[in-house]
């Protein structure tokens, strides 16, 4: 593991105790320049994780709490007319919304109406915002961490598959282990900010290095076999898209980089596979009536099954 990344992880695990794998995945996601979806129950440390990430990487941070009456303009920003100035200076100025930050925490994304959801997802994809015909570029790096309450909870608008596909990775923190939770309870200065380890420029450099990681034909074929199996087999109601296969490659490269290697091995693909594909393979709840077996809704199980069905060593 690379030294600097190791430091980052050490720092993060002071806040999120006993979740090394999830932290490593979150770092991988950031290095792969993707957006992260955290699906978890309230109070599991979603907000803490995103805040800690921005502190460690020295990034500017904003949090948007999504509710059912949140409008796109609340998030993106509005043009405001200045009346109190002198006549020649009366004009519209754009007031930036909270989305113009390097790390955006979109909390409880699935409580907002589809309209607002899609506004955010547009911005995530394009990395720019158009308001009243003027295009405003979003800052770089731009990293969205969205949290989602499990869809069975009341007051949620489930994200459609097309929007789920835009998230690079989905992780879930889960309850901490006994010892980890005890350590957390014993912490004295839980709210003390973390010290900055890296900055935006070095993050940018790392992202470029990730893109340059070597991938052999064997790895590409492995990824292709995985995605085409999902398309040909009957087991998977939502097959993987080309965007998913690109994400797989990107994720595997980032994981290899984090592990301190300059080439990708099948283990790298496997390490990120479930996190990248589970949310893309599931059926959303309104398809539940179509007589599918219940494990079609368990993305992790589907994803693991797909992974187990392909031999990484096959030529």
């Amino acid at each position: 593991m690379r030294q600097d990344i190791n430091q980052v992880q050490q720092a993060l695990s002071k806040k999120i105790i006993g979740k090394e794998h999830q932290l490593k995945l979150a770092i991988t996601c950031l290095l792969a320049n993707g957006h992260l979806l955290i699906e978890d129950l309230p109070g599991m440390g979603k907000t803490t994780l995103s805040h800690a990430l921005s502190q460690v990487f020295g990034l500017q941070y904003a949090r948007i709490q999504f509710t059912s009456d949140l409008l796109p303009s609340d998030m993106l920003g509005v043009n405001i007319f200045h009346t109190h100035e002198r006549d020649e200076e009366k004009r519209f100025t754009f007031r930036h919304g909270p989305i113009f930050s390097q790390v955006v925490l979109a909390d409880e994304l699935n409580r907002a109406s589809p309209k607002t959801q899609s506004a955010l997802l547009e911005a995530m994809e394009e990395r720019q915002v158009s308001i009243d015909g003027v295009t405003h570029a979003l800052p770089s790096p731009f990293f969205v961490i969205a949290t989602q309450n499990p869809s069975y909870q009341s007051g949620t608008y489930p994200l459609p598959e097309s929007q789920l596909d835009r998230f690079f990775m989905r992780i879930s923190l889960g309850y901490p282990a006994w010892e980890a939770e005890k350590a957390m309870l014993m912490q004295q200065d839980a709210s003390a900010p973390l010290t900055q380890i890296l900055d935006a420029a070095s993050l940018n450099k790392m992202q470029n290095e990730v893109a340059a990681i070597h991938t052999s034909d064997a790895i590409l074929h492995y990824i292709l076999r995985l995605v085409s199996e999902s398309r040909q087999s009957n087991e998977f109601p939502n097959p993987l898209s080309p965007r998913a296969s690109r994400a797989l490659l990107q994720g595997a490269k980032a994981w290899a980089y984090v592990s301190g290697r300059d080439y990708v091995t099948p283990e790298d693909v496997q390490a990120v596979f479930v996190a990248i594909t589970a949310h893309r393979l599931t059926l959303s709840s309104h398809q539940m009536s179509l007589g599918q077996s219940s494990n079609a809704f368990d993305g992790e199980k589907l994803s693991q099954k797909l992974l187990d069905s392909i031999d990484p060593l096959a030529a």
Partner: protein
Amino acid sequence: MNSVLLSRASQFTIFRSVLGQPNSVAVMILCAAFSLILFTLTAPLMIWVLMLGGCAVIVRIAGLSTLHNLPTLRTVNLLAVLAVFALSWFGLSIGLLDSMINLLTVACALKIMLVEKKRDFHLLICTCLFLIGCGFISSLSVFAWVGYTGILALLLIATALYHGAKVPIANSVKFVAVLIGQAIPIALLLFLLLPQLPPLWQMPTSKSTETGLSDTVTPGDIASLASSSDLAFSATFKSTDEVPEAQNRYWRAMTLEHFDGKTWSISEKRKQAEQQLAFMGKPAPLSVIAEKDSPAVTNYELIVEPTQQTWLFALAPSFPNNRENSIFVRSLFDYTLRANTPISSKKAFYLSYVPNAQITNGIGNFETQLNLQVSTNGNAEARAWGQSLANQYANPNERVQAVMREFRQGGFRYTLSPNAMPVNPIDSFLFEQRAGFCAHYAGAMVYVLRAAGVPARMVTGYQGGSALNDNVLQIRQYDAHAWVEALIDGVWVRFDPTSMVAPSRLTFGLERALEELGESRQTTILRDIGNSALFATLQGWLQQLDYSWSKWVLGFDNAAQTNMLEELLGALTPQKMRIVFLSAIGLIALILAMYFLPKKEKARLSPSHRILLKAVTHVETKTGIKRKNKTLSTYFQEVSTLLTPHAAKAFEQLCKQFEHETYGQQQTPGNTAVMKRQLKTLKQAVK
């Protein structure tokens, strides 16, 4: 507004996923195949079973769009119970075989409404295949074969679609086409070379489908056959010269010697006598001729359509022309031929016709007495006429001629639709109506001759037949005929009273005879269609096709197989047979290899890859843990503790080398040699 949008969106999703779901396309194709099978099985299936099947298909296809509207398990179970009651009620009247086919179809129809899981789908496919097998019981024609092959292809496509979920339909169709393409040469080879086994079990005869002549004749029965133009059988001769003249084509089926005043039937006494003689081991007279004098014979082949009965239609006198055939065919003492089992499917028989041989009085005096019995039940006038003939002429032949003369000169008329003659049928025919069909004439003549003291019997069978081509005759149901045999000087002589009233019936067939009389067998529209040149050509072509199929495919038995091999190879020795079978297997393997080898080529591995796989196999056998689809490092962690440190180190090195070579950026030269050495070390270490 949002909720409206949402609900519309979700509706769209459901709609799309139903149409886009390949499973539902597969089920739809399965439904189509099932309805086609129903269509071909209309004969054995009862009308309510057909309706149930049709409804099931409709319910299923309608249910595809709204999955919740399918009948529940409880409804289907209720239907099943009702169907079982209905089946057991009707089963008694339709026979075992047909009720089993009905049962299968009902089961299929009920299941099709429930198909949900993979297992259900496979079950249905298999049952449909079995139903296709049942379809071949009743028809082995080339059309049935083509149709069922089509349905089979549909079933295969449905299965392929069901499994290759998101593969485009065109690809599935192509896949099935390739499969069938592979299967055809293999099937052909097996058909040509595998010994033709006799059937393993006896088919239970179904009651409803007996066709053709029956073993009792009431005048008028044969007239009803005249309305059917179904093929009865076809006869193939060696050459054109051997085909008998039209007026001599009498295909004898059975002799009717018992008359109860209304109906002619096969005499019970004769049946008993035949049984006794067979029990005593006395050979039938014809087989004696065949063995004794090596007479001038005409060999021919009969291809008989299924009748569910045992009698054969042969030019008299004929005998089965080889030993193998004589196992299946019996000659009786009245020179008729019987198959040993009811003819339940199209079947070929090889017979020899002896034109010069006479039909002798097979069982002697018994036969004479049997054929002099006159039923005294009514018909007094006819008996009186017979007795007057006996007084008038001393010579039996003269008595016969007198009757024939009376038919020619007495104002008799040949008609397909005579008036009903319920009381004293022979009297009212001879002296009042004077109009009738062949059975009326034959029956009346036999009756009068017996009264006149000449032993006589009615013979039924077919007369005539149309030429399909130079040496093939096709005989249809409307060629059914009845005539008379009279015993004169110990020999049964054939007399045909019909020839007196309608000579063209014998030379040109029923159609022409009726035309001359201003009657028609068919309705006019059908006749117009039948007369158009195009239709006639088409019909002729189809008949030719069906005939060739029957002759070359259905008629391909052990003898034909041996003939073919002998023609190709000369005399057959066991050694040659072995070579033939081995080369056939080799050929099949070659055909398959041609398809599979190119794929193997593609999967060629790099040297280091091969070395690694070998190493993995060694480790697998040593530790007993299979790698399956695990990655190398995961697998190594699992097995490293089970290996000796030395072996573990070698294996780890190998994995590292392979990883570098396969996934790494720089190719290290000489890596393969290093890996080979390590493999050797590993091999020694795990020993």
